[in-house]
């Protein structure tokens, strides 16, 4: 029975063109992968455990527009400093999706490397191979990859979207009628999540205005702006307001819906 976390791949053969008929063949490991923006294309990426960072052919990356953030900005990869990130899906030998690695950094291949290795993608140690266990069996000419459960690819989306713990706690407070505490905790939880998710590139010392601007920029939707302002108004009311100015259930639930909408939007961008 095949383990869910292990797969065997055959090694690819290679010949020395100057070899005699009795010379041994060489084998190298290459596994099928898909890059997230090229769903229909299977790329066989070679594995190089001596490589620190994975590499991608620049022309290939530009052609495939692999870096989604570059696609919207119409930026050429030649203008970029030296690396990009994309999601890599490791396929089984039958070419079905198996493991998913988000935001893998890929450096651009030098000309010397391209001559040495004709692959469009070469998988290196950091941010990729480090998460796998590799076992090469030369007599059998196979390589066994063992992954981790957290990287298993799942086509079925979760029945409930995963929300940050701060917002989940705020939701619980709002459910039991603590609208004031709920709204305060809601925005605090949202800001904490945004800092940790690297989506808005805000420093930890960012002010409330910086966060509001960051969220507006992130969502880029003017019809959303009023809801964001309202959410922050309620947060300010919760912290600085008076007893005679209570937050209603409707207002608290609207703020909660706004926060969840921001999370969903941010996750689609990431």
């Amino acid at each position, binding site marked *: 029975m095949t383990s869910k976390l292990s797969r065997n791949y*055959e*090694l*690819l*053969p*290679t*010949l*020395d*063109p100057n070899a005699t*008929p009795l010379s041994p*063949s060489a084998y*190298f490991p*290459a596994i*099928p992968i898909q890059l997230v923006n090229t769903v229909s*294309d*299977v*790329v*066989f990426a*070679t594995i190089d455990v001596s490589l620190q960072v994975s590499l991608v052919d620049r022309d290939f990356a530009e052609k495939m527009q692999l870096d989604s953030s570059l696609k919207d900005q119409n930026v050429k990869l030649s203008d970029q400093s030296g690396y990009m990130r994309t999601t890599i899906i490791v396929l089984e*030998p*039958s*070419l079905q999706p198996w493991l998913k690695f988000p935001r893998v950094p890929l450096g651009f291949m030098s000309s010397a490397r391209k001559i040495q*290795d*004709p*692959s469009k993608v070469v998988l290196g140690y950091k941010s990729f191979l480090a998460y796998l266990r590799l076992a090469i069996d030369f007599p059998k000419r196979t390589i066994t990859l063992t992954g981790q459960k957290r990287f298993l690819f799942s086509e079925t989306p979760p029945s409930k979207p995963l929300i940050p713990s701060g917002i989940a706690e705020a939701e619980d407070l709002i459910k039991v009628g603590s609208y004031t505490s709920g709204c305060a905790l809601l925005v605090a939880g949202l800001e904490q999540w945004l800092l940790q998710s690297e989506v808005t590139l805000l420093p930890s010392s960012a002010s409330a205005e910086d966060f509001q601007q960051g969220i507006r920029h992130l969502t880029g939707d003017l019809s959303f702006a009023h809801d964001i302002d309202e959410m922050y108004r309620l947060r300010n009311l919760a912290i600085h307001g008076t007893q005679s100015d209570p937050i209603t259930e409707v207002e608290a639930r609207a703020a909660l819906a706004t926060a969840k909408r921001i999370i969903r939007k941010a996750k689609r961008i990431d």
Partner: protein
Amino acid sequence: MRLFVSSTYRQLASYREVMRLAIEKSGYTFLGMEYFSAQDAPPLNVCLQELETADVYVGVLGTLYGSSPPGEELSYTELEYRRARELTIPCIILVISEEALIPVGSFDSDPNRNGKLHDFQTLVMANHTIDRFCTEHEAAWKVLAALRVQETRRREMANHGAVL
């Protein structure tokens, strides 16, 4: 050595990719549609021009006959094969095994096209000793093994000629 790899693309893209890696890593030059850029010439002309520069023709036959140029009855793959024969380019032919895992939808529903595929397979098997493959890796190592045999024969003939 320049190898022209001829096959349908849709079904055999991953097989071609593995073959390309193995061929290029072995120091040979891979010639194939993957490297054709947009040009002001019909695709058939581009393919045949590229074929004329090849030392070896590698034909890979799957379960689909493949598309045909406008006005032609034969597929690109078959036209390339026939041209290779006209040019007396040595041919290495691989045919997909019946035991290979083929996704549903990888067979032509048109009986006319299935008939053409059958005729093409009959033609190549009459002219060559073919080999069969199930997986991408198997196709790759069998091409390299066939190349090794070709090169050995070539060296022997060259040595024999030198002696004479």
